[in-house]
């Protein structure tokens, strides 16, 4: 059974030396100041990363209010766990890992009932949804296709393609080795292709 040390080593391996050098020195400074209870420094971090954290939570949960709560909780928990963060590693994947775990737990607790009600509601006439530009409409369709996959495949696609993380960052955010991330992505893409060809052919046209 893997211990915490294994997990740390896997993440170390997931971040190539070049990327480790790209760690923002100002960001490291903020983190160090936040560890000394400097709230203003932590707020700089929150401002910088609230968008990707909120977006990942939104992709996983599909509800902006829930995503906002998860984003807030992510920064609270990250602050409490700062002593465990290794400054030699990029910060964003570490933060996204927390957000992903929280959003996953929330999704499990929400269950299916709300989703069923929402589906029923969406089948009612007179939808008032604002029209979307074609490319944005396609992106929403793509999201619907991704949501039909297993959660682990959804997450790897969200991180790599929707949030445009590098392969190394994706692996770190998922707390898995780079090779595992690569093969997971490969299988997720194959499954996504199948879903699109079956139910979302308009994305191919």
């Amino acid at each position, binding site marked *: 059974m893997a211990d915490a040390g294994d997990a740390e080593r896997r993440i170390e391996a997931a971040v190539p030396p070049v990327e480790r050098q790209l760690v923002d020195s100002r960001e490291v400074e903020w983190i160090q100041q936040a560890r000394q209870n400097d709230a203003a420094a932590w*707020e700089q971090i929150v401002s910088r990363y609230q968008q990707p954290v909120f977006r990942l939570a939104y992709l996983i949960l599909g509800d902006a209010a829930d995503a*906002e709560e998860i984003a807030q909780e992510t920064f609270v928990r990250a602050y409490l766990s700062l002593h465990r963060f290794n400054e030699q590693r990029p910060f964003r994947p570490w933060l996204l890992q927390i957000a992903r775990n929280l959003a996953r737990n929330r999704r499990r607790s929400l269950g299916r009932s709300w989703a069923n*009600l929402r589906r029923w509601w969406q089948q009612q006439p007179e939808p*008032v949804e604002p029209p979307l530009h074609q490319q944005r409409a396609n992106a929403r369709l793509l999201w619907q296709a991704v949501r039909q996959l297993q959660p682990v495949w959804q997450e790897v696609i969200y991180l790599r393609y929707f949030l445009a993380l590098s392969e190394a960052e994706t692996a770190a955010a998922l707390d898995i080795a780079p090779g595992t991330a690569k093969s997971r992505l490969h299988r997720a893409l194959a499954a996504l292709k199948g879903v699109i060809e079956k139910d979302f052919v308009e994305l191919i046209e």
Partner: protein
Amino acid sequence: MNGQNSSWEAALQETAASFPYPPTPDVVAGVRQRLAAPPPHWSRLVVPSAPRTRRRWAAAILLLLLAGTLLVVPPVRAALVAFFRAGAITIFVGEPTPTLASTQVPPMTPPPLLETAPGVRVTLAEAQAQAGFPLRLPLEYGTPDEVYVQPLPDPGLAGQVVIMVWRDPAQTSLPEQPRLRLYQIGAEEYGLKQAAMQAVREAWVHGQNAFWVEGGHVIQLPAGPYLVEQDVLIWTGGSVTYRLESGLSLAEAVQLAESLREIAPKRLPTPQPSP
């Protein structure tokens, strides 16, 4: 094959990059507030503990009690079709049953309708101090004419309900309908609404799902059923549920909802003794 894969991946990335996310909310203030809370609060945030579980049970029991009492009120008894959660408010959607008028069976005695939603009148600063979450004000309406805090019957439910009222300056005679009543509900469970299917519409506030309930309806509050005569917009922001009663159109109500801003602590008037 690799070329095909890379072009498929490129197309995927390009499409995904156009995803229409809702606007990212600014969570800095919320994080600041939670970090400023006393340490015992932290343990509840990190690990759901017994008090949280108790709150959920209390909320569930309240929901059942409210549902039971709601159906005793003849005007709101109906063939329920579905229900929706809008934050702390549950909306039952149904169609009125004709048997109410034609049946020979005498209905159960309904509880009297409350004339106003109950609450203790306070100043805005007192409401902010008691709320436990940042209160928000609509940009164009300034500070409210009256503010009420509505305690929940079971302290285990946690949270507060703050009601802000804006009067119409041109209408001074009583009885009157206030221009706006804005409820800011920091509780997990608050009330039940019952409305006819055609009276409930889905709406969007900041790109998030909201509900618009048109016309008169009854909301079952912990203190009793309360007749709402105006249209209502219900939406959520973080863990707070907002409920706006007004004579505004849906578009105007959404505009007001999207204009809400947190009150800067410095700008809160000094607390005055309540009348």
